[in-house]
């Protein structure tokens, strides 16, 4: 299996870029020569130079250091949001699909209501309840992603639970938990992985967008979306503030999307070329 995955160029390329970004996040203090929070007002809005690779912001902070340290926040926020959607959505989906009947009806009814809030609106509504802040954004984006997992995992479980080998396991007296964990879960893991790759990219974009409008990371946190918001306020004087954090987001999301496409083509060849 690993051999098959590594044969695919897009998986190797997307995966390498992602590993590189994780390394950048881990070794941020060794890569940068400035503290991302150090304010030097007399050094404000300096254009990119050999001293400050990406220039400085309105408080004289080094933008390169902030972009590098920002990778820690964006990757962490994206990953935790993803875990929330993945665990909650898969759990509800597998239960709905396996037990069916009333449980299925209730979970799917809740799901239909959540799907009535398009795109970011569900996350915005949850931030409305919990209040602005990066932790609340993780929860909001995480819950916002749950309906997709419920739908896919439920449908997969439904189609697998009536297959002969599952029925055989039931006939042999295997318990419900055993059937769910040993017989059903391993066989629906491929669509979950594909969805997770797409969801990771989406979660990074959504949390950056919420930070951009001021509902996520609060100053002075070096978060990419929040940095672009500063770039917007200083756009006439400092093009670099509105440029580099955006390139960082794009490279991260692009790498994850390329990886996701590769995984989809390899793990589920029937979906190749579709969206």
């Amino acid at each position, binding site marked *: 299996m690993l051999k098959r995955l590594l044969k695919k160029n897009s998986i190797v390329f997307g995966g390498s870029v992602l590993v590189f970004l994780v390394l950048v996040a881990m070794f941020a203090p060794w890569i940068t020569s400035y503290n991302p929070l150090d304010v030097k007002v007399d050094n404000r809005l300096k254009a990119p130079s050999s001293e400050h690779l990406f220039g400085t912001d309105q408080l004289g902070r080094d933008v390169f250091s902030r972009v590098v340290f920002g990778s820690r926040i964006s990757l962490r926020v994206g990953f935790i949001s993803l875990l929330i959607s993945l665990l909650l959505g898969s759990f509800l989906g597998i239960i709905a699909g396996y037990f069916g009947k009333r449980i299925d009806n209730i979970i799917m009814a809740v799901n239909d209501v959540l799907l009535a809030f398009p795109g*970011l609106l569900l996350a915005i509504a949850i931030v409305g309840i919990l*209040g602005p802040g990066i932790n609340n954004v993780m929860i909001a984006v995480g819950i916002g992603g749950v309906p997709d997992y419920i739908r896919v995992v439920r449908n997969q479980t439904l189609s697998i639970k009536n297959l002969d080998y599952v029925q055989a396991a039931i006939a042999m007296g295997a318990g419900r938990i055993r059937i769910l964990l040993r017989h059903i879960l391993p066989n629906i893991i491929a669509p979950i992985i594909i969805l997770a790759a797409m969801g990771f990219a989406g979660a990074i974009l959504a949390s950056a967008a919420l930070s951009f409008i001021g*509902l996520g990371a609060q100053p002075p946190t070096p978060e990419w979306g929040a940095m672009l918001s500063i770039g917007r306020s200083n756009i006439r004087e400092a093009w670099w503030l*509105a440029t580099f954090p955006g390139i960082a987001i794009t490279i991260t999301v*692009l790498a994850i999307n390329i990886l996701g496409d590769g995984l989809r083509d390899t793990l589920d060849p029937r979906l190749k070329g579709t969206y």
Partner: protein
Amino acid sequence: MKRYLIRRIITTIPTLFAVSILVFSMAHLVPGDPVKIMLGTHASAERVERVREQLGLNDPILVQYARFFTKAVKGDFGRSIRSGREVFDEIMARFPSTLELTVFGLLLAILVGIVAGTLSATAKNPRTDLIIMLGAMISVSVPGFWFGLILILLFSIQWPLFPIAGSGGFAFLVLPALTLGLSASAIIARVTRASILEVLRQNYIQAAKARGLSKVMVIYKHALRNALIPVITIVGLQFGGLLSGAFIIEFLFARPGIGMLAVNALKQRDFPVIQGVVLFAAVAYVLVNLIVDIINAIIDPRIEYK
């Protein structure tokens, strides 16, 4: 057909009902006292009590919901805690601006998406297909608001062709609509491409080719028409995404729409306004989906039998 339409319309009623319950619960799910959060820690006990009374938070929860629902149906979403103005009036004053942006963004996305998707699916040169699909991949990976910033840098500052921010005539709409439509156009392009490739494999296309019809005729007369059905569905779904995406784009271009209203209300924790906008947008989305399904049923009578 009639039965399908009636059934489809009836199924939206429980959804709308549930949406109203969820939006109503928002203020009750807030950790802590919503009135104290709205007014801040310095508010006097008297003021807190007065606002609590004004919002009817002292009544039993079912009474509160019944009141919320009956008022919302009549378009009464209460008053803003900050400005004291009617929330519904505030939304109505700003909605045309949001709708204009969403519709224009969607039209651009449809145009670019369908043309790019068709070109990609029917290109003789595999490199054209690759370039278009690579462009689509990059377009869904670029954060919309950053694309907007780059457009401002290029077309408002470097070459001042369009205004940097605000609202007014057509010139104010171009950059925000381009920004908003970017990722939707990529998604529409991918769906169009996949759908055309699928349709081109069908027997009736082979038959049309065998009858000696030109390539253009086969693609536009036979393939595109049938390929557009999944595209219409995805366009409908994109409308919701664009509507909520407009919240971010309005902030970026300082356009006074309902997104801007919501963002300010979220920062000030003005619950009646937040609830009003969320309810309004969700209901709009549910209704648009209903319309899309009806259009689909009219275009493709097979849907009824599925």
